[in-house]
């Protein structure tokens, strides 16, 4: 179904992103592409769905890729799209329409399918994928998980032979990943060919026939499914891969270190357009403590953090630091929030300038220290937006530290990070805890949660926040 012969590829004249790739995938096979960030797995998916070379300017491609009987480089994208469907990682930017119904029909309307056929087909899609809940919705009322399920359903509607999935779980919580797992199971059962590039692997057990491990733009090794999931823990870590089995948040409460500095959240409750986002939440956190906050998508974790940081007004309840009630402005001053999408909070024209803008006092040495600790010093003259996702994340954290604020809040700091970068972020956060910051982390990355947090708070939809 997919034949990649002697392919080398570069995004520009110099340097190969992919070298000597040979890969043959049979009909009905489900193949995982894995490896560290920058190993070339996303690039490889683009060879198959035609984004390379059709969507990539000034690139250099050698060799031949044939998918579903079409020579990819010589076939128009719209021809490829009839038989090759793609789902990408960012649920926010895969939509053209404001409502879900238009979105489901979008692909079929593009190929000019008859209205009768479309109505029939859409019924089938909704039944087979169990996505009744996604019909007749406004896209902007949907959670990230729902958007991703819709993106999958609208590709499914076109009934392609090959599915190319590029890090589809990067922004999803456990529940949404489970939905995706069932959807992939469905297409596999239908005999479709699936190519999936992913960091998170555990949910693919029993689904994949082979796993392609890549490194530095080359295929390092190909495992069959069984072999792959029986890799030893030691091998997995050496390969820089995420956990192969599902993690459950473990309760590892460290003995409280009384430091006298304490954040107390009392009966805090927020409203959005008159509707409470979550029920009153109470908890406390000591200096030097790392508290994880988890719960399903849409349960209000981000709103709770924005409220603690004083970015939204609470409906009721209060936030105290060292026994003093803080106003919104004081909370703005006491907290730094590293957002889920750090692109919104980088304003500088270079990495160094970004740090200077944040530093409370002009302290070249301190900036240099922190940049070195975060492995960013050699990038100090680059523009923040020219950095990779992980580097941007680290820069946002670095600038947060330089503001010298007591309370540091991280909203999903590991979305889309591979194993090593996830560990790097957790090391940094540990160091911050040692410097007596109060640290709150919102995450549904259980692996990360278990590595870094001292304590976990589960937010549930209808009840009070419960401590685990």
């Amino acid at each position, binding site marked *: 179904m997919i034949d990649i012969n002697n392919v080398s590829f570069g995004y520009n004249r110099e340097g190969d992103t992919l070298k000597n790739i040979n890969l043959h995938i049979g009909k009905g096979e489900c193949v995982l592409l894995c490896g560290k960030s920058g190993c070339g797995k996303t690039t490889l998916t683009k060879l198959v*769905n*035609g*984004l390379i070379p059709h*969507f990539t300017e000034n690139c250099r491609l050698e060799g031949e890729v044939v998918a579903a009987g079409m020579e990819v480089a010589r076939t*128009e*994208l*719209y021809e*490829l*799209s009839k038989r*090759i*469907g*793609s789902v*990408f990682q*960012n649920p*926010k*930017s*895969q*939509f*053209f*329409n*404001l*409502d879900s*119904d*238009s979105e489901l*029909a*979008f*692909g*079929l*309307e*593009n*190929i*000019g*399918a*008859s*209205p009768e056929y*479309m*109505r029939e087909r*859409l019924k089938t899609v909704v039944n087979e994928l169990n996505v009744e809940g996604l019909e007749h919705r406004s896209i902007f009322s949907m959670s990230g998980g729902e958007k991703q399920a819709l993106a999958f359903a*609208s*590709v499914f509607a*076109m009934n392609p032979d090959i599915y190319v999935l590029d890090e589809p779980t990067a922004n999803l919580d456990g529940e949404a990943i489970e939905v995706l797992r069932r959807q992939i199971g469905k297409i596999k059962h239908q005999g479709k060919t699936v190519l999936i590039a992913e960091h998170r692997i555990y949910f693919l057990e029993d689904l994949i026939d082979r796993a392609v491990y890549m490194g530095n733009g080359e295929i390092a090794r190909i495992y069959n499914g069984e072999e792959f999931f029986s890799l030893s823990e030691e091998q997995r870590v050496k390969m820089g891969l995420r956990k192969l089995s599902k993690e459950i948040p473990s309760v590892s409460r460290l003995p409280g270190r009384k430091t006298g500095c304490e954040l107390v959240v009392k009966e805090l409750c927020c409203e959005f357009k008159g509707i409470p986002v979550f029920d009153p939440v109470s908890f406390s956190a000591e200096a030097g403590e790392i508290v994880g906050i988890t719960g399903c998508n849409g349960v209000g974790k981000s709103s709770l953090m*924005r409220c603690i*940081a*004083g*970015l939204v007004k609470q409906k009721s309840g209060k936030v105290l630091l060292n026994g003093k009630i803080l106003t919104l402005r004081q909370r*703005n001053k006491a*907290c*730094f*929030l590293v*957002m889920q*999408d750090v*692109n*919104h*909070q*980088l*304003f500088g024209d270079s990495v160094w300038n970004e740090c200077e*803008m*944040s530093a409370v006092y002009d302290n070249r040495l301190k900036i240099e220290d922190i940049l070195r600790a975060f492995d960013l010093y050699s990038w100090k003259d680059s523009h923040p*937006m020219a950095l990779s996702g992980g580097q941007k994340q680290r820069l946002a954290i670095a600038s947060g530290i330089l*503001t010298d604020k007591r309370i540091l809040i991280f909203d999903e700091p590991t979305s889309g990070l591979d194993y090593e970068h996830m560990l790097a972020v957790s090391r940094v956060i540990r160091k911050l805890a040692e410097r007596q910051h109060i640290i709150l982390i919102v995450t549904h990355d259980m692996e990360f949660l278990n590595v870094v947090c001292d304590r976990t708070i589960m937010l549930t939809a209808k009840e009070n926040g419960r401590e685990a």
Partner: protein
Amino acid sequence: MAEINKNGQIIPIDPRTALLLLLLVTIAVFSQHSFYVEIATLLVIFGLFLYGGLAESGLKFVLQFGFLLLLQYAIFPVAPKLFTDTFSILAAYARKVLPCAMMGAFLVKRIPMRYIVLAMRKWRFPQKLIIPLSVTIRYFPAIREEMGYIRDAMKLRRISGAARIEAYIVPLMFSAANTAEELGAAAVTRGIENPAPKTSVIELRLCPRDYVLIGCGIVLAAAAFHLR
């Protein structure tokens, strides 16, 4: 009564009728010199609001119009000079464009974007125009979201003065450029460049009430030219 589609949205009239009516109302408004035509236009649109189940919002427009009349004929002649001078042009202009704005409000409230696109396809507008237009409409809510995030981020940092404007514009532009890239990739892999004529799940059909409305629009536009 207006039909309700399966989305639960009310589609009172064909989107083509609504767009044509807007065009005719605009012509009528800018060529009329008669108070009667002005009132008739307003009443036709108000009728449409009632038909579409928008009585409350329709009434608001009518009250606004009444207020403007009151302002122009009862208050301005006796009000202090400064007040009259500042607001009279505005009032005259607001009164003139009110029927257009009212018709526009009807379109926004009652005709979903999907139907407007459909109407444009029926009229054989080129895809090159329909695609960017739908993306524009789709991106408006995203801009608002982005601005909210950027504002939050600025509250947590000390950014002041002219740097604030830069701090708004720059991330907004980066995010727009990224979205263009990602949305583009998603679009082309779903066949947006396919030259085949586009089809739609929904089929449009003009019915008698559409003809009645278009008829009203034509009468208004014609009257606007002939009545003085």
